[in-house]
């Protein structure tokens, strides 16, 4: 051994190698093959879907390049960039895996952390299946423009798109840092609810303004979302053949993207050096009085509820769901044709129960993940395994009910009180979905567990296999619930809907009760695998 000191560059190569090794080990671990197959299936779904949308974008871009100037260029170009940016940001904040940006694991090594962070940022663009989808769409835009008007102007257009992608990724990273900080605040829940209420009031206020005024406000507000605003401005100039006029927008996009990345990096560094990363606000010291549970399901349920209340996803969902409900009540429900059957016109309302389970599906598809080492305590205690599942399901059903309740408020404010049959149908659907989704979710949680995290943005993405199974469970669940809709439309009797869903719910509860001991037995048999996965037990 020579004793020569390793250089940082070789350290970065080691980071890259480490990430590949970790991915490879994950695939070779028990259940890794299924995980790998699921990932391939997700890619296989993302690529053709991306190509189909890319063809649409290419057609729009082709048309814009042929026309050159005017409203027929401005609208599709803005729509492409703003649409891409919205979906990219939303999906990244909710779904994407962000372990690449987690600096904690590299703190102990002599590595330039700035470069490690940049590597994480780059991998969030180049090695993320969702980002692949957006990049395909941008590529479609470039191909469409090239087909319409080949020339050197395509180079600045490609640069514009590349800068847009980097700036969007940087802004997402910044949003994640800010969101993580907000969620660590003691008053995070209260702030989230306050922000939600403010959002409803803004929506309500905006709905009463003339369209032209709303347009003017949106025109000014767009600069807050600088990546699509600057990228589309530059692109409009480029489509019109004014390369020189596009340069200031490109320079601004570059500068703003770099500044955003720098702020996100500084926040990440400060967070990781302060040791606050990954921590939640401490609960109030004095616990409030709770009902005196005598059965052991009570304490289990109490623990589950505390865990859900202390997790950022339910808190964010309590903000997100009412906003979504407001949007559905404000824009979607009134847009349905008057002559449609009452049941069909109420479909946006019936989406709320399904959404209340969907937004927290990562939690119920991996219900032991958050317990980490605590999962050992569950199996050391003298408890039948089916009780563990029952407590987790009950807490999750309560959370979904709370989300539905939170979204009912803006719905009532905007759309008004629904008819009695629709009100009962929502309750029946909410109740019927619980045993179907959570019962099937138990199987995924037991068969494909993985360690969960309380950090909002660090590696919170669900396992690919679980996501795929979640899609299947949701498709099966909603497919089952579609039968009463068809029946009610056929009979032209909306009350058949509530009756149908209530009947399905009763049947599902009976099946759930019969199969819970079987799921418990499966959990007992699989406890070693589960503990190895969520606690890191080396078996």
């Amino acid at each position: 051994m020579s004793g020569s000191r390793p250089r940082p560059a070789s350290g970065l190569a080691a980071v890259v190698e480490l990430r590949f090794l970790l991915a490879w080990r994950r695939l070779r671990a028990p259940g890794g093959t299924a995980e790998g197959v699921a990932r391939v299936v997700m890619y296989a779904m993302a690529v053709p879907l991306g190509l189909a949308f890319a063809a649409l974008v290419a057609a729009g871009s082709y048309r814009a390049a042929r026309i050159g100037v005017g409203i027929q260029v401005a609208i599709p170009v803005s729509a492409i960039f703003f649409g891409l940016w919205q979906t990219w940001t939303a999906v990244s904040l909710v779904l994407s895996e962000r372990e690449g940006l987690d600096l904690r694991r590299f703190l102990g090594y002599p590595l330039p952390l700035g470069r490690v962070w940049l590597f994480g940022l780059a991998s969030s663009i180049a090695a993320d299946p969702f980002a692949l989808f957006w990049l395909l769409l941008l590529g479609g835009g470039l191909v469409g423009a090239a087909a319409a008007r080949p020339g050197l102007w395509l180079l600045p257009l490609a640069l514009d798109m590349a800068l847009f992608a980097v700036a969007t990724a940087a802004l997402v990273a910044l949003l994640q840092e800010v969101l993580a900080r907000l969620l660590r605040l003691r008053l995070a829940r209260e702030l989230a609810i306050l922000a939600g209420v403010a959002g409803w009031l803004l929506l309500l206020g905006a709905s009463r303004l003339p369209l032209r005024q709303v347009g003017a406000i949106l025109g000014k507000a767009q600069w807050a979302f600088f990546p699509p605003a600057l990228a589309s401005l530059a692109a409009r100039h480029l489509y019109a053949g004014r390369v020189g006029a596009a340069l200031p927008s490109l320079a601004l996009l570059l500068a703003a993207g770099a500044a955003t990345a720098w702020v996100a990096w500084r926040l990440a560094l400060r967070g990781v050096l302060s040791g606050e990363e990954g921590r939640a606000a401490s609960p109030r010291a004095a616990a409030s009085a709770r009902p005196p549970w005598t059965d052991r399901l009570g304490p289990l349920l109490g623990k589950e509820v505390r865990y859900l209340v202390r997790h950022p996803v339910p808190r964010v969902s309590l903000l997100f769901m009412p906003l979504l409900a407001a949007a559905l009540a404000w824009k979607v429900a009134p847009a349905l044709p008057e002559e449609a059957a009452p049941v069909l016109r109420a479909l946006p309302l019936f989406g709320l129960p399904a959404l209340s389970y969907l937004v927290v599906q990562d939690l119920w598809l991996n219900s032991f993940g958050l317990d980490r080492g605590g999962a050992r305590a569950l199996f050391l205690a003298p408890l039948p395994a089916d009780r563990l599942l029952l407590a987790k399901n009950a807490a999750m059903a309560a959370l979904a009910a709370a989300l539905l309740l939170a979204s009912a408020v803006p719905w009532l404010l905007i759309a008004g009180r629904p008819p009695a049959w629709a009100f009962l149908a929502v309750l029946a659907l909410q109740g019927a979905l619980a045993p179907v989704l959570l019962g099937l979710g138990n199987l995924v949680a037991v068969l494909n567990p993985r360690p969960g995290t309380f950090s909002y943005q660090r590696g919170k993405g669900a396992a690919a296999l679980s996501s795929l199974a979640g899609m299947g469970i949701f498709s099966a669940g909603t497919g089952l619930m579609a039968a009463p809709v068809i029946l009610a439309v056929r009979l032209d009797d909306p009350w058949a809907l509530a009756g149908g869903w209530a009947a399905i719910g009763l049947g599902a509860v009976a099946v759930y009760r019969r199969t819970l001991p079987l799921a418990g037995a499966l959990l007992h048999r699989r406890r070693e695998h589960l503990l190895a996965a969520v606690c890191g037990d080396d078996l």
Partner: protein
Amino acid sequence: MLAIETCGLTRLFDGKPAVDGLDLRVPEGAFYGFLGPNGAGKSTTMRMLTGLLAPSAGGALILGRDLSRDGIAVKRLVGSVPDGLALFERLTGAEQLRLSGQLYGLDRATARLRAEELLEALELADDAGKLVQDYSHGMKKKLALGCALIHGPRLLFLDEPFEGIDALAVSGIRAMLQDLVSRGQMTIFLTSHVLEVVERLATHVGIIHRGRLVRQGTLAEIRASGTLEESFLASVGEERASPQPLSWLDGSKAVTG
């Protein structure tokens, strides 16, 4: 009566035995020190005896009950501090203790009273409202011990309870364990790498090596005329290791940058 009696207890991983035909005899009221080198099978044995792992072959009677047939009833009588601990990081210390008590069948009021008493005894009362994730390693060990004791178990399993904690905490926990055994109401099964701790506390010792029980008996029988360390090294067939100098740390070669 025996607190633990195993018969041919075996656990295979990928076809290889981690624990191989173990026949343990732990008398009730004993402080049993379970010794072995790293990877000998101590933690695997403990996981099997606490129901976290299923044996590949053989079985165990815990306090006269068959672990495989009567697992829930056995767990009611047993407390455990496993390797890696079994704590919910997002509960406060007080919540964690109370939850443990309730999971083992105590009513809420009793669990709360005992939790308060344990927090005082373990010197954690000032941190009762803090989340477990904010506890130091030593505090977590003490809290895990409290969770294992709250329901008054007749048999306590402790996997490396003194690992990673300071001398003051070791002294406190050791005094508490000695007190528990001296009252004659509890059997303690403890694994430790620290032979001095076992020598000071244990009444009985078992030595496991490569998955097999190589010696078992009272401390006096195992020690015979020497020290426990000498008996241990002789049992596992190893000589006292002589330090082998590392070529690049022998002081003669300068580190170049």
